[in-house]
């Protein structure tokens, strides 16, 4: 199927109630030039499911240079366990050096995480996605009710598409809960990042990730010092709710 024939809106509605392996099958049947984005966390279930459909599935990971040692070990474990190659993407050393030389190694605690994430994650990701027709993410609605409640199982990627390059984004786990993901991991003996044994739920860079306590939302384990700035761009009403506000 070509991108022109891919009816994203119709398929998003049609597949909304389907299970993740069905969404993955749709993705892999529809696109040859497609890859899974693997964060080194519980999104490993996507690789487990996808290799059963296409054993040579393409996978990439963003190595920011600041990941936990356990995450690096896990990425390598996944590589050997599934006998796949993982394309590890690195940030541009010049940009990292400029940031670190100007602002130090922990500027995100003062200036917010976006500058560092932009250099270490978004730029390499954008370059990679410019080479693909479609990608697969582990995004789930329950990861953040404030920002991911509307994540569909498939969409046109509004962040990384351009006027001359439409990118399709699949989120097969969108409607699964964390519990369902972990039920799958246990049932299918899927390898997982050791950090999960220490209370980490969401796993990102080492300085920006912390374990959470029982009943704390996983969002509280990431960038816990800057919740207010994350909301800053939203249009909120101080007096009464407006339909456009988040």
């Amino acid at each position, binding site marked *: 199927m070509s991108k022109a024939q891919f009816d994203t809106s119709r398929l998003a509605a049609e597949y909304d109630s389907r299970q993740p392996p069905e969404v993955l099958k749709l993705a892999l049947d529809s696109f040859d030039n497609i890859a899974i984005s693997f964060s080194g966390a519980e999104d490993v279930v996507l690789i487990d499911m996808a290799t059963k459909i296409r054993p040579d599935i393409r996978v990439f990971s963003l190595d920011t240079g600041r990941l936990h040692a356990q995450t690096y070990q896990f990425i390598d474990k996944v590589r050997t366990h599934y006998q796949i190659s993982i394309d590890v993407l690195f940030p541009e050393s010049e940009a990292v050096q400029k940031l670190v030389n100007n602002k130090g190694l922990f500027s995100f605690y003062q200036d917010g995480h976006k500058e560092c994430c932009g250099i270490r994650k978004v730029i390499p990701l954008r370059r990679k996605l410019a080479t693909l027709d479609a990608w697969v993410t582990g995004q789930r609605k329950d990861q953040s009710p404030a920002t991911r409640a509307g994540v569909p199982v498939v969409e046109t990627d509004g962040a990384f598409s351009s006027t001359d390059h439409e990118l399709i984004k699949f989120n097969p786990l969108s409607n699964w809960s964390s519990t369902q993901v972990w039920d799958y991991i246990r049932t299918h003996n899927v390898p997982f990042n050791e950090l999960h044994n220490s209370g980490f739920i*969401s796993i990102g860079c080492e300085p920006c990730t912390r374990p959470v306590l029982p009943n704390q939302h996983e969002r509280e384990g990431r960038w816990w010092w800057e919740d207010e700035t994350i909301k800053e761009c939203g*249009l909120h009403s101080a007096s009464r709710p407006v339909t456009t506000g988040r």
Partner: protein
Amino acid sequence: MHITLVKKILADGSPCRKCQQVESRLVEAGLLDKIDSIVIADERDTDSAGMLLATKHQVKQAPFFIVRDEQGNETIHTVYFRFIKEIFNRNASESEAAADILDSSPDMDYI
């Protein structure tokens, strides 16, 4: 062509950081005089012109641009680097584009 920039005043009366950044970038690029009107979305006043425009166009974030062509058709631009590319054929740096992507994509908060 008529271009409107909608920028935001926060509930505490301070200007929104991203709106200030975008305005500075317009100045640096020599494009501010291409903006025909600047409208305020004041979080303290849901009837402020900018809040009404946001409601009308179902925009959830500020700043944003409304571009009206000669036929009266309006298009909304919420991502600055794409706006300057599509309207003025100008390119932003990779780091600016990355910042715009993060600011305009709430679901990337976990990236």
